[in-house]
């Protein structure tokens, strides 16, 4: 029992240590980011121009919008595909469990 408790404490310790090191890891990554890529906006207009300008202005806003747009688009496409498959007549709620 004592050995088990020691093992438990050790594992929790290792976990906590890993979490403490996470900011260091993130900082190390930042230091490596030394390449700057700029989008060429000369051939763009409308929505594409706005998108490329945002990329050039702030990668942070660009990232925030990207990670909002992707799941939303995924959900919309997923729901649309559901509607189509239901219309075809496929049962989308049950399956037989077998290996």
């Amino acid at each position, binding site marked *: 029992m004592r050995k*088990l408790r020691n093992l438990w404490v050790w594992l929790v310790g290792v976990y906590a240590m890993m979490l403490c090191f996470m900011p260091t890891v993130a900082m*190390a990554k930042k230091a490596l980011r030394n390449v700057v890529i700029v989008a060429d906006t000369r051939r763009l207009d409308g929505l594409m121009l706005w998108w490329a300008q945002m990329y050039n202005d702030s990668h942070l806003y*660009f990232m925030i919008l990207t990670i909002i*747009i992707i799941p939303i688009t995924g959900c919309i496409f997923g729901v649309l595909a559901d509607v189509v498959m239901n219309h075809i007549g496929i049962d*989308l709620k049950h399956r037989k469990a077998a290996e």
Partner: protein
Amino acid sequence: MDWLYVLMPISGCTIFWPGLIILGLGVGIIGGFFGMGGAWMVTPGLNILGFPMAFAIGTDVAHMAGKSLISTMRHGKFGNVDYKLGLTMLVGTVIGMEIGAQIVMLLERLGNVDKVVRWLYVVLLICLAWMVFHDIAVRKRKEREAQARGEVLDEKATGIDWASKLHAIKIPPMVHFHQAGIYCSAWLPIFVSFATGVLAGILGIGGGLIRMPCLVYLIGCPTHIAVGTDLFEVAISGLYGAATYTLKGRTELVAALIMLIGAAIGAQIGAVATKYIRGYGIRAAFGAAVIGCLCSVVLKLIQPYFPAYAKIINNVATVVVLGFVISISGYIFVKMIQGAAQEIAENKRQRAN
């Protein structure tokens, strides 16, 4: 034919957009069926379409997050996702991947590790392929033995059973994962996901290819639950990956969205196909996919040894990857259509009676 090409606003390259939809469709089918992101297929595909490598990886990760979300939604409705298990494993995966990436950076400072990492990948893929096909052979032997005794093997019986031995290690806290039907120490999924995360981080891959068989063979998940739960993890870790790559300015969202059109259809086909194929059918096709990945990695590895034939070998590697994508997604598509047609016909017959 200019309308078939679209100018990418960030990378500045002009891309054949139907190619993006077809690639998304093929990888969507495979991803939804096996529960993996499929970076080993998408990245060379995007590269062929004209993307610089830096943008190919980021765009792949971004589209992977959306595609896996669609597949997770579908698998979730079938009851194939154990969210509790997925969230438990996510902790180990994220920490493991970060540590794996740091290990690579450390090794890079010591010398050229690229070759070592690629050979490690080859060894891992050989082990995975052996594990899958050995399991299938053991299960077939059990079936034959049961038949000889005049019995029918239980539908949920498996070939390899390492998981029950691991479940016997009872380090508290013990957790019941209801959907997967597993009662084990919480440390088992955390440790497995941590180990697969470290490996994925070292190899620079998403990890679905390693995690899915580990969920089956080490944690003891039924195949369908392993596929769904792995997709749930891929969706979340893919979103995290998309965020980091986008912050570095390496994501072409327009291409990712175009790919998502094909992937949305593909992911649904792949996920619905799991309904009509038994667990061992999925495992066999997964083994074939691992061999496809292995071939492409080996062909890339041997290139420096034959500099005169480097271009030919590179083209062969591309053909092999695309050939596997087409044949496996074709197989899944045909099975899905056959299963769906049979189900619709049965429903009509029942209604007529």
